């Protein structure tokens, strides 16, 4: 059985507790990086990270990019959608195909 976790500020992610995900309150960049490492070690398969924290965890997400697990996924927080998830997708498409074929039409 795999574990799923959520990382972010308390106001945004408290709600995920109610549907059975493990929540970790972390807004500081260094602490969030450490927490991500610890969660990866503990065997979390999916870690959802709020966009504002995701920005601060670039090095850790890059580190795990070459492994199948954990999947670190940005989600919007309580202040709204910042579009970081879409930007990541766009970068991937540009890297793979050369041009952005999803968003330019």
């Amino acid at each position, binding site marked *: 059985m*795999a574990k799923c976790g959520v990382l972010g500020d308390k106001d945004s992610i408290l709600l995920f507790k109610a549907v059975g995900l493990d929540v970790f309150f972390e807004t500081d960049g260094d602490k969030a990086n450490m927490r991500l490492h610890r969660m990866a070690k503990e065997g979390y398969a999916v870690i959802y990270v709020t966009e504002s924290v995701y920005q601060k965890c670039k090095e850790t997400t890059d580190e795990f990019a070459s492994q199948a697990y954990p999947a670190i996924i940005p989600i919007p927080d309580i202040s709204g959608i910042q579009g970081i998830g879409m930007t990541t997708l766009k970068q991937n498409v540009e890297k*793979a195909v050369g041009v952005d074929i999803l968003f330019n039409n």
Partner: protein
Amino acid sequence: MASAMQVKPTRMELSNLKKRRTVAVRGHKMMKDKRDELVRRFIVLARRNKDLRIEVEKGLSVAMQSFVLARAMMSNSEIEEALMYPARAIAVEAEKQSILSIPVPKLSMEAQEGFVYPYGFVTTGADLDVAVQSLAEVLPLMLELAETEKACSRLADEIEKTRRRVNALEYVMIPQFDDAIGRIQMKLEENERGNLTRLMKTKDMLANK
């Protein structure tokens, strides 16, 4: 232009180079096929990823808006009391599947029979119920998003690597081999001609004696 390869002009070296060139050409063809197939699968995944992300972000915004309303109606301690109590953990099965031998995650969630709120209804407002309900609805999509997004980023990396290999073979390795093979052949022919002239000369000298 391909830089010159340092090789000895011998027949041995020539046959080695020809073998290596054949391998490089075959490798180039396979890499090219791999790249094309990866790109084809990537485009399918990327489209799905985009749709899922739009849906998930919409669903989460709805849930969070209701949560903001709920927080306005209830006190902080009441909210925490309602939510901090451990709910039944979701049952997620994490496996690995492989797309052209690239391991990507495969997640599946066991369907839960009947959704239960992890709190009592006495101190909580209706907005909290809406928030939790809409979050529970968007949860399967979030898992699929995690799966697709990870697969997408892994494929993108792999495509980049494969494309570099294809280009390195096509524009560096194979021209270098061609160049070296050509030069050895010319050198060998030159030696052959030199030898022939020498023989003719010797024959003349012997005849004139």
